[in-house]
């Protein structure tokens, strides 16, 4: 993925997270502690504050710097997890799918978590799987992203049937069933926004 496209994706993620502060926080307060939206929004605000000064030598460096700002400025569980994800994506090289796989491995390692634990992984992994298969089938980036967003949304919605095994929500055990995971839903919302605005941005990248 080009640096310009990457910059745009990161910026879209940041702006969407800031816009959805309240929604994400409300999702986290059903069985969590309600700080998820606030944590992401404040962290991504800080990222945008220093936006122009981020090292843009290449796509990998840009993603690593993004991850470092996030890890060092977002608190809660999300700072280390999201920061690690961006840093690993930056370090991995390769195409978008490779970078996403690296991010996923980083989250798993940092969070000692896996698919099925009712976390953002349960949206991020299906998203990546679909992106990979669509691109493998020869879809355009825009088409693949659209399909991936749909997969993320379906997977996020499906977390409602799961019992949380990681994060604050895990203390509730069975009671976590019946509501979607905040992190997974955030991934779906971000993916949808990227997909919806992909074309508009198309000319530029």
């Amino acid at each position: 993925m080009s640096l310009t496209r990457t910059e745009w994706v990161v910026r879209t993620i940041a702006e969407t997270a800031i816009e959805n502060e309240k929604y994400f926080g409300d999702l986290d307060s059903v069985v969590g502690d309600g700080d998820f939206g606030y944590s992401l929004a404040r962290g991504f605000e800080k990222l945008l504050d220093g936006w122009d000064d981020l090292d843009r030598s290449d796509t990998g460096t840009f993603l690593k710097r993004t991850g470092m700002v996030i890890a060092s400025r977002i608190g809660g569980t999300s700072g280390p997890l999201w920061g690690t994800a961006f840093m690993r994506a930056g370090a991995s090289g390769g195409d978008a799918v490779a970078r996403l796989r690296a991010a996923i491995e980083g989250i798993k390692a940092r969070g000692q978590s896996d698919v099925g634990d009712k976390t953002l992984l349960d949206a991020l992994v299906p998203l990546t799987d679909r992106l990979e298969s669509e691109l493998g089938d020869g879809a355009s980036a825009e088409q693949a992203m659209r399909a991936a967003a749909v997969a993320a949304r379906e997977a996020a919605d499906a977390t409602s049937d799961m019992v949380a095994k990681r994060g604050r929500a895990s203390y509730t055990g069975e009671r976590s069933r019946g509501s979607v995971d905040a992190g997974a839903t955030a991934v779906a919302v971000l993916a949808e926004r990227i997909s919806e605005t992909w074309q508009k941005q198309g000319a530029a990248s």
Partner: protein
Amino acid sequence: MKKFVNDPKSFVPEMLEGVALANPDTLTYVPAYNLIMRTDAPRADKVSIVQGSGSGHEPAHVMAVGKGMLDAACPGDVFAAPPMDYVYETAKLLASDKGVLLLVNNYTGDRMAFDMGKEMAEADGVRCEILTINDDVAVQDSTWTVGRRGVAGNFFVIKAVGAASEQGADLDELLRIGNKVNDVTRTMGVALTACTPPAKGSPLFELGADEMEFGVGIHGEPGRERRALASADQIVDDLLGAVVPDLPYASGDRVALMVNGLGGTPISELYILFRHAHRRLAEQGITVGRSYVNEYCTSLDMAGASITLVRLDDEIEGLLEAPAEAAVRVF
């Protein structure tokens, strides 16, 4: 939202600035890292003791910085662990020849931030050790979680290692003492109302007029179960029924008994709980050697309380008796 707040985003920094202004001779505030530290720290002849965690639990931990307690606290936002950066910078600022002890309540976010911060500080040559506190018996099936949570019992760990470090104990000795205190400390809490995080502006969860959340976490995490409201005495019986058999505390034991308010419960009610807990323990042959009735580790404005027991021996009791000073002083 019935709160004294300006911009919710400045809730934590404004509070910290208030703490610093109220204690100009003893505390220093470093805004960049939400850091409250003793003006006389670090001292070459003393291990520096640091705790961070989410904010919203005051007086824990920023108001527990002072002589015989913490050397510094670097809290995150409300209910959010501090970013690893705060931990890293704090460890560097507090670096002492005798090392830095990082106290961590056992939550995923806190552990990750402190692990990462410690690694970075060590890479800079700062000797650090992490001591994890996990006194909350409400968490039962710990294979699915990061394990038991650290709650009000952290006061006793802070107090004990704080006292020992003033007496010159080295880092290994403090780890021994802190782990020893943590090992004999058990807590469980109950919420009568939900708390309202300033940034959310509405209660974190719904609790019916006749319900209480039994085994609640200090971030408003649901606990063991939602139950019908009960009398003060019944609630004490149920909390002790979870806490006492867990260690277990047994006839002949001498304990510290803490009734900790969660933020919205007046101290009068805490003494009503204390009274019955004291009597119930006496019936079981357990002697209350030291009593703590106040707010120590809160959950914003939540009405509720927790009960903590610490099994005392001469070493622990001596450390708990040692003098201390902190912003939470009354006089």
